[in-house]
């Protein structure tokens, strides 16, 4: 068997390929061993010259991406800001309630309003406390600003409150400076003002004067703020005047409050009954 070596011309491509591959491998090794630093410096310089004209394209594309990202972040941050503002507002309201609760001598039970009907003549509120929590009919509801209404129906876990904006609502009240008393009610017309009736025309009433519960009716504790005087109107053919009051509590914005665990004094109640019987 004869072994024939190929000629150089036949193996030319193989030899060239082998040489190129060896050079390539040597370059790779040299690059990793740090032997091509000068060449690399030169190549980086050339590359930077080539890159420079189109670097603005990359900057522009990056700016577009950054812009999209920032717009998303902006929406998220606005949402977060809105929620934080709402939380801050709620925090302030709860702080006011807490302060009112700690300063008040009344027995207060905190409640949250879970239902609100303020579109009709017979407006009502529903709160998340009922008989289980010791809430009974007739107990007043207050907030840190003043009187809200009174409980008219109490069930297990929930109670219905008649707010002052109800044509059936009545509370005995007095002007804080003159101590002239009357009955506060709502005529069903304006949702911005209440009326204090039966105040004699001889009583001087100033605008801005505070009206509070009198406690005379034995249904509400005394000195709960109701509102401030807006104006007065003399009643035709009567010796009394009608005092219009702007209530302190905004029923449309209120979310929490307290039920005052107030029970009418039975001694006064019995005395009144005895007096009525005596007159009969």
């Amino acid at each position: 068997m004869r072994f024939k070596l190929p000629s150089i011309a036949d193996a030319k491509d193989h030899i060239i390929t082998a040489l190129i591959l060896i050079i390539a491998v040597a370059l790779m090794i040299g690059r990793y061993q740090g032997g091509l630093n000068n060449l690399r410096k030169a190549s980086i310089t050339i590359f930077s010259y080539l890159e420079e004209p189109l670097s603005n394209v990359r900057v522009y594309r990056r700016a577009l991406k950054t812009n999209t990202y920032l717009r998303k972040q902006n929406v998220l941050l606005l949402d977060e800001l809105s929620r934080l503002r709402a939380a801050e507002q709620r925090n302030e309201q709860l702080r006011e309630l807490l302060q009112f609760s700690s300063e008040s001598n009344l027995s207060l039970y905190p409640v949250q309003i879970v239902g609100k009907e303020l579109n009709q003549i017979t407006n009502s509120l529903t709160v998340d406390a009922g008989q289980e929590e010791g809430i009974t009919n007739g107990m007043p509801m207050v907030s840190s600003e003043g009187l809200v209404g009174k409980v008219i129906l109490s069930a297990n876990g929930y109670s219905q409150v008649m707010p002052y904006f109800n044509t059936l609502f009545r509370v005995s009240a007095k002007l804080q400076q003159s101590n002239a008393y009357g009955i506060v009610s709502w005529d069903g017309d304006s949702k911005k003002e209440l009326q204090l009736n039966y105040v004699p025309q001889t009583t001087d009433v100033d605008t801005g004067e505070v009206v509070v519960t009198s406690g005379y009716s034995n249904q509400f504790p005394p000195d709960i703020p109701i509102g401030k005087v807006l104006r007065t109107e003399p009643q035709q053919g009567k010796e009394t005047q009608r005092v219009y009051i702007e209530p302190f509590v905004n029923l449309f914005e209120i979310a929490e409050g307290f039920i005052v665990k107030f029970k009418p004094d039975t001694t006064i109640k019995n005395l009144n009954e005895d007096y009525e019987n005596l007159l009969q």
Partner: protein
Amino acid sequence: MNPERFKNFGIGVGFLLIQVMLFRHLKIIQIQPDLILIFLVWYMARKDRTAALLMAAGLGFLQDAILDLWGLNMFSKTLLVFMSYNFIPSGSKKQLLIGQVFLTIAIAALIHNLIFLGLNVAIQSYTGEQYFWQHLIGSSLYTAFVASFIQLFRTN
């Protein structure tokens, strides 16, 4: 270098510059085309193997120098030309269909990228100089020695 070859090398450098300056910035989900490879396949179809090998080595070297890869493209492209030269339809006057062009370039690019990535992984693994030279020179010589020994006994 004759004028024809010099002209073709200039075209190749032009492709390289377009690749580096333009197509590197037109990435789609971090993918970019390799214009040099397209040029080399075109060149293989028209020139002899030696010229194609030298062109691949030259352009690969320049690409490596610009991209600081040093040897990776040179190795991959040269090996690709060497292996695939006989499979590229050459000297035909008939124009290839677009599907044929796509398939040819796709297979060539796959082989090239396979070599490129394999070599990249290998070169990063074998950065220890002593082990590398032991493996490359020592193992190669030892294999050749064993082959010669077998050949010696076989003739006897």
